[in-house]
């Protein structure tokens, strides 16, 4: 019962915040609504008993990504201009409506191989074995580290004053 109430409140918050990002003219408020959407997503992860991912979502997305976006909004001084829409409003609305309808149709038409097992709690140690264990995703983790290094170097090179 508590899980159900939490799910409905959090999903309503996530959908309203996401719609607010698109609706909102003020860029700064749009970025703050993005924070609300991320926090609601972290809460939905908690209802799915994914505790490690909820913490990672709060730390990385709410902590780092949102701050980065707010700082870049401040640096580009676009707050005064707002976030205007282009001329594609009506076709885009129908296109995304078709996409959403197709996904929901596929969800109901597929017979999912549901497993009634209880979820592993806490997930952090199971996830660590899966990601860093012997036959896990160790190489992919290394490539992720390489990607982050390339990102740092790329951001520095892009923003270097070339004089």
């Amino acid at each position, binding site marked *: 019962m508590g899980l*159900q109430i939490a*799910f409905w409140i959090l*999903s309503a918050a996530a*959908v309203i915040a*996401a719609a607010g*990002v*698109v609706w909102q003219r003020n*860029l700064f408020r*749009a970025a703050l609504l*993005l924070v609300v*959407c991320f926090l609601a*997503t972290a809460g*939905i992860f908690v209802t*799915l*008993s*994914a505790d490690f*991912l909820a913490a*990672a*979502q709060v730390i990385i*997305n709410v902590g*780092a*990504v949102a701050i*980065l*976006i707010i700082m*870049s*909004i401040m640096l*580009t001084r676009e707050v005064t201009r707002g*976030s205007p829409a*282009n001329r*594609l409003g009506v076709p*885009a609305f129908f*296109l*995304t409506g078709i*996409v*959403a309808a197709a*996904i*929901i149709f596929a*969800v*109901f038409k597929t017979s*999912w191989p*549901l*497993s009634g097992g*209880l979820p*592993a709690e806490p*997930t952090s140690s*199971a*996830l660590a074995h*899966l*990601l860093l264990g012997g036959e896990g*995703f160790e190489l*992919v983790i290394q490539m992720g580290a390489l*990607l*982050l290094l*390339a*990102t*740092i170097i*790329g*951001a520095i090179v*892009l*923003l270097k004053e070339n004089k």
Partner: protein
Amino acid sequence: MVPGLEQYLILSAIIFSIGLFGAITKRSAVVILICIEIMLAGVNIAMVAFSRFITPVELTGQSFSVFVIVVAAAEVAVGLAIILALYRQRHTIDTDKIDLLKW
């Protein structure tokens, strides 16, 4: 009734579609990046829901979600660096006015 897999997948589809709509219709490059982040959040919900309801012990979906979060962080860092570099050169981040590569 406890929310099942379908409810989570519908929520994920709705959030993904809202993000897609914003990414198509907005003109400010920063808002397009924000909408792409919303799309990735929707995908993450679907991944974690699959992990919870189909492989609750093996946690396969959650490991994919970890990589989605890593790549999203890298993407937003490079994307904002490109936007700031563009703003320095052309003093706008309106995607209708950034037409350097337009044929």
